[in-house]
């Protein structure tokens, strides 16, 4: 029964559509995590940034009636808070992990605070008629049998996420900024002695992570669901951190990692909708976490062996 449902959805390509949808926030957030990680400022506050952006995006989007303004406001909020993280970690010398941790508590609590103060709700806020991020229907291709379902009818943010992968490859490996970013992440003092403004680069790395986490959050509220639910990220930000490691710290690896995570949650969603499923959905939900640990162990073992065989 479950297998038939899953197989059916694979055959009629629904799985692909679901996969792309659930992959998008993970992919965007982990690209953000990647840039800050490369710059040597690990951002574990992605979860909080996403929540803040998700709330701002739907609130501004529904009050202005324009999804683009909403998304921009969400991204702006997220970037602003990342600059705040930079202030506390780079200037006030708070450990970057602790700063990220604080942003996560802040994002979770402050969005609920705003929701209850502004709209009198505590659980979720679903404005009627809030504008959605539009879907992209590609003319002609949408009528081609298989190709149409594969390429057409996805949210604009799905495409933005996929193009962001290319953008990140370009940014990190093809620009002077990328060279600076990588050198600051590898050896901040050495970079500084060569005249690279290490602090400023790290601020910008955090800001980039804010941009991508902001896009991811805005997609959750304005694209996927059209509402804000408290703690609606449900660990996506933490997953993104795992994807950064899983993807071996490069954009293509991150795309693959996000696909694995996306597939697991897409399957869990399908299994949950099948009544009396023999496969417990909890264990399918667990797959990405277990895979992450397994991959981490795999990389650690490989590094260890490489160190051991070095002359």
């Amino acid at each position, binding site marked *: 029964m479950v297998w038939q449902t899953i197989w059916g959805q694979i055959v009629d390509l629904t799985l692909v559509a679901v996969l792309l949808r659930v992959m998008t926030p993970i992919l965007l957030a982990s690209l953000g995590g990647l840039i800050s990680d490369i710059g040597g400022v690990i951002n574990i506050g992605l979860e909080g940034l996403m929540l803040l952006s998700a709330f701002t995006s739907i609130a501004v989007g529904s009050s202005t009636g324009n999804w683009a303004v909403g998304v921009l406001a969400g991204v702006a909020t997220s970037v602003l808070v990342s600059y705040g993280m930079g202030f506390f970690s780079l200037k006030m010398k708070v450990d970057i992990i602790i700063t990220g941790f604080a942003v996560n508590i802040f994002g979770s609590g402050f969005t609920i605070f705003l929701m209850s103060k502004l709209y009198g709700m505590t659980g979720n806020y679903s404005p009627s008629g809030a504008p959605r991020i539009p879907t992209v229907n590609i003319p002609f291709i949408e009528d081609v049998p298989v190709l149409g379902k594969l390429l057409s009818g996805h949210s604009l943010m799905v495409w933005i996420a996929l193009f962001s992968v290319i953008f990140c490859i370009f940014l990190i490996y093809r620009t002077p900024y990328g060279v600076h970013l990588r050198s600051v992440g590898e050896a901040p003092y050495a970079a500084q002695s060569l005249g690279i403004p290490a602090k400023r680069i790290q601020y910008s790395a955090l800001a980039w992570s804010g941009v991508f986490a902001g896009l991811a959050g805005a997609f959750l509220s304005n694209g996927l669901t059209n509402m804000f639910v408290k703690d609606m990220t449900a660990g996506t930000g933490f997953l993104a951190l795992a994807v950064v490691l899983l993807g071996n710290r490069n954009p293509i690896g991150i795309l693959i990692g996000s696909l694995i995570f996306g597939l697991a949650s897409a399957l869990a969603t399908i299994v949950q909708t099948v009544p009396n499923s023999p496969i417990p959905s909890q264990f399918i939900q667990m797959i990405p976490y277990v895979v992450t*640990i397994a991959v981490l162990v795999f990389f650690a073992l490989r590094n260890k062996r490489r160190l051991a065989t070095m002359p």
Partner: protein
Amino acid sequence: MKSSKALFLEIGGILAAVVTALLCGFVVILLTSSEPFTAISALLLDPLSSTFNIGTILNKAVPLILTGLALSVVFQSGVFSMGAEGQLYIGAFVGALAGVYLPDLSPWIHFPLVIVCALLGGALFGAIPGVLKAYLNANEIVTTLMLNFVAILTTSYFVNNQLKAASGGGYAKMDNISKDILLPKLFPGMAAHAGILIAVAAVIIVYLLMYKTSIGYELRLVGKNGHFARYGGIATRKVIVVSVMISGALAGLAGIVEVLGIHGTFKENFSANLGFDGIIIALLARNHPIGVLIAALFYAYIQVGAQTMQFGSDMPREVAVIIQVMLVLLVSAQAIFTYIKQRYARSGQKAVK
């Protein structure tokens, strides 16, 4: 003499951070409330206005003290574990299994057995990221975060299926634990349960362990300077695993005390981030056991204050989050503390001249 001055400065700095954080909270209340003074007084005074509220503060402090201790131990060995939440679930789960399914035993045997099971459950689950960190250098922040999900989902699966209580109605929980091993009320008529005694005992034991035994010394040395410790002949890997296991055991204890004191059985998703709140407590306390006790009581006070404020005014209790976040950031802001110390040192020199 010098160290007591440093301690004085440290405590002064932390108090200043607490006051500043509270002020930030007040500013937000002033800006957003139509009855700010009612709200502030409800936040600050109402928690102490009744024995019921005081009991609630103690009850809320109990798991915070234990998770705070758990994290202070592991942080001192230089491992940044985020895994107390998962260890708490596993400890509570294993303990509750022993509580529900062991055949009739005298409570004098049954109760310690349940506690030991919870300690072991937490310690063994904590050992996983510990071993991965110590022997493979796998990033403990990621492994512990991932294992939290594994723990929460696994226990959720069992209490939704095989172990689901028929009497639970719509709730996913185990059968009730027999009343004679539940933690009794501290005083009749007060909300506080006897878990606070366990928490205080744990504070004393952890204090002795960290500052009066060789394992505590080795643990702190590894945290301060791993290379130096290894050079000095300390088996750093073993020490790291031991510290993570002690931490897991304490987190497991936090879980079972919450089960035996508050819920009476294991419920799905019962913790609500106690493990993460423990991180804040350990940070505020600068990883010192006595500090953990004070910080947890203060934190519980703010939480109860936030609740009474929500009842007594137009402010939602989430305002407390602003105070918590500012506390975390200000207390961990090294730059401020270095600045204060430098200023103090300079003024001291002037006085000598």
